[in-house]
């Protein structure tokens, strides 16, 4: 009952984020197609690329094989998997926000007391998120067609991306029934999604003998829709059945639990605080330790995976001429080396920046705990305790990822040099977020995330040649770039660090002068 009113409420609350994520993913597809056309201008180049892909384990693991030998097939091979991950991430965040977060913060109670059916909130959230993904599918199809790709393949890619979102939302719908914490529910849903994604990768890596493994998980179904390579439309029926089953399970579980409760009973904590829980630093440690540990572990695994598989990538690509144009643009003679560096650089830069900005913005949530700042603790000390994690955890992540890379390649110094050099750039991103948080209060988060989106956009635009070298230099990462564009010496690194410290100082100064958001 009254589900439509709740749907309107969700659309109103997300009128910015919903269109933003859909458009961003569509834009990502458009730039990918343009990039592939630039990089692989001839049919021979595409053919060559596709052959190389089939032999490259890292690419098979992270992206999957190509299902055709056209520009569309190459583009889909490159980025279709990424679009499913983006769609899943956005869908999980939105679904959790409109179900468990509402419950956790008591808004659901207010809605539930009105003339609203027990199932209405979950129905409304699922409807909106599933609908948003349908729009994403349509938009990607339009983008593909207008870029000159075949309509069937474009639509298949769109549906593949949307399937990622649908499966993510379905997993999240179940996860929010199980635990009381919105944060835990979201993390659990995404972990399951990503694990299934990697299982599909292992299956692709293992060749025909391992193909059955990929069919065990939904990610294997929608990634084998064969966009631009003789589309297999029936896989989407499997996806629809999976989503329906998960939604049914979510409704069944929600009927068996109380409002605000999870199916897993909450654990009791200690009656007294451990000795370490004192002062701003102790509190920041409690706030950040779980996430920090998870990210550092992830960095170790991805680093080791790249190191082990990356060596093969270097060899196969060394003999290929497919990436000559692009290698020329980055100023490197050996396309093999530069490709390996690019993969490490992109993964490190964007995932670690994501962590750093997220960690800085946790300050906003903590700011609302009026109690803490009514104690004898200065705002600077309180903020500095949180920022310590935004500064040091990236160091740990990059050092461990560098060592893990070395584990695979046998070159520890080289691995460390490759990852740690970007640290000052990460600090600048964190610094921008601190400055925005200190100066702007509510707009702080928007500014922080926009800065990250802009650096990604600049990076992509530069690779394609839309942006020249001097404009690209406004990105902090251009100064620690993998290409010959930058040769970061101590001066560059110190300079970036000073910029980061300056931005942080501006933020802390602003924070000391402004009203708190309570």
């Amino acid at each position, binding site marked *: 009952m009254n589900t439509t009113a709740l749907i309107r409420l969700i659309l109103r609350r997300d009128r910015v984020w919903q269109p933003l994520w859909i458009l961003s993913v569509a834009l990502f597809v458009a730039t990918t197609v343009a990039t592939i056309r630039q990089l692989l201008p001839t049919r021979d180049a595409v053919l060559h690329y596709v052959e190389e892909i089939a032999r490259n384990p890292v690419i098979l693991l992270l992206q999957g094989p190509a299902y055709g030998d056209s520009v569309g097939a190459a583009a889909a091979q490159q980025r279709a998997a990424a679009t499913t991950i983006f769609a899943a991430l956005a869908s999980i965040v939105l679904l959790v926000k409109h179900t468990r977060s509402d419950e*956790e913060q008591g808004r659901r109670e207010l809605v539930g007391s009105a003339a609203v059916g027990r199932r209405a909130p979950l129905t409304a959230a699922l409807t909106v998120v599933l609908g948003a993904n349908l729009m994403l599918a349509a938009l990607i199809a339009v983008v593909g067609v207008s870029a000159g790709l075949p309509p069937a393949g474009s639509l298949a890619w769109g549906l593949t991306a949307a399937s990622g979102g649908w499966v993510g939302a379905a997993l999240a719908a179940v996860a929010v029934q199980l635990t*009381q*914490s919105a944060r835990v529910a979201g993390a659990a849903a995404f972990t399951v999604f990503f694990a299934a994604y990697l299982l599909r990768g292992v299956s692709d890596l293992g060749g025909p003998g391992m193909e059955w493994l990929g069919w065990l998980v939904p990610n294997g179904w929608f990634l084998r829709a064969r966009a631009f390579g003789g589309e297999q439309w029936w896989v989407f029926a499997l996806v629809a059945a999976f989503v329906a089953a998960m939604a049914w399970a979510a409704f069944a579980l929600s009927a068996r639990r109380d409002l605000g409760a999870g199916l897993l009973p*909450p*654990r*009791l*904590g*200690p*009656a*007294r*605080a*451990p000795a370490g*829980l*004192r*002062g701003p630093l*102790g*509190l920041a440690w*409690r*706030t950040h330790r779980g996430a920090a540990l998870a990210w550092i572990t992830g960095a170790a695994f991805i680093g080791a995976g790249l190191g082990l598989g990356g060596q093969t990538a270097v060899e196969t690509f060394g003999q290929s001429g497919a990436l000559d144009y692009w290698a020329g643009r980055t100023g490197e003679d050996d396309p093999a080396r530069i490709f390996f560096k690019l993969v490490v650089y992109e993964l490190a830069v964007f995932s670690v920046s994501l962590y750093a900005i997220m960690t800085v913005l946790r300050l906003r949530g*903590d700011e*609302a*705990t*009026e*109690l*803490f*700042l*009514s*104690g*004898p*603790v*200065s705002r600077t000390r309180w903020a500095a305790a949180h920022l310590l994690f935004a500064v040091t955890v990236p160091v740990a992540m990059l050092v461990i990822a560098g060592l893990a890379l070395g584990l695979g390649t046998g070159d520890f110094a080289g691995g460390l040099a490759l990852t740690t050099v970007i640290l000052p750039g990460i600090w600048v991103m964190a610094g921008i977020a601190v400055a925005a948080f200190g100066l702007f209060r509510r707009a702080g988060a928007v500014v922080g995330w926009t800065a990250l989106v802009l650096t990604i956009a600049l990076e992509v635009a530069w690779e394609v040649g839309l942006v020249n070298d001097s404009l690209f230099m406004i990105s902090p990462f251009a100064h620690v770039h993998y290409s010959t564009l930058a040769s970061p010496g101590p001066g560059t690194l110190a300079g970036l660090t000073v910029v980061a410290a300056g931005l942080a100082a501006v933020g802390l100064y602003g924070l000391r*002068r*402004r*009203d*708190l958001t*309570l």
Partner: protein
Amino acid sequence: MTDVIEIHGLTKEFGRVRALDGLDMTVREGEVHGFLGPNGAGKTTTLRILLGLLRKDGGQVRLLGGDPWADAVELHRRLAYVPGDVTLWPSLSGGEVIDLLGRLRGRADARRRDELIERFALDPRKKARTYSKGNRQKVALIAALASEVELLLLDEPTSGLDPPMEAIFREVVAEERRKGRTVLLSSHILAEVEALCDRVSIIRDGRIVEAGTLAQLRHLTRVSVTAELARVPAGGLPHVHDLSTDGGRVRFQADTDHIGDVLAHLAQYGVRDITAQPPTLEELFMRHYR
């Protein structure tokens, strides 16, 4: 006796909304001061300015002899605060929050902590996420009351508590007063203020409209009279307000200063029965809000 809180002409604007409009208030050492007003009158804004969480736009504010904005950290060692809407860290247990805040203020009394947990019947092992509003409020109250501080700032501390817990709260505040602590208690529960407070300030639209002891406030105001008369007065009576008639029965409010004249005048109509009551705090309060 010195003043713990002195506020003169305090103003604060949020965008175009004027939250405080020249507020004056004084809280003396060792008193329990009631801060009365309906929602949105500016009580919480005043408390947050006293805590240096918000910045004042104009006027003077002194807290424990210091400037609440510039000397915030030093002053916070000497006070404890209970917010009106208590948010805690969801993954910390109640006991952990109490200890964290106690260690932060540096003067936590472990025996008092355990005693208060027992009196308020709080389970300190539960995660803050699972507490109700009342239980979150108890966590903040216990943390504040277990600290050896000079001043307690309490923002509607009982709004989520059930009546037995409210009674315990009153006992505890009375104990604190005996120890010589100063308490600023913002509330709109008038019975609570009447029972606990030495002096009150009533706020309306960002200004103090009435301040003083309860006796002073009563004196300034009117007496409620109900009388049974032989004849009903045709017109109005002098110094009488809100006159209503029901058969031979009349009810009205009389100015305290002219109560003698009113009774003399009333005698002409043949008084059969009369009751007169001093105004309750509620009547005082409602006068400013009608």
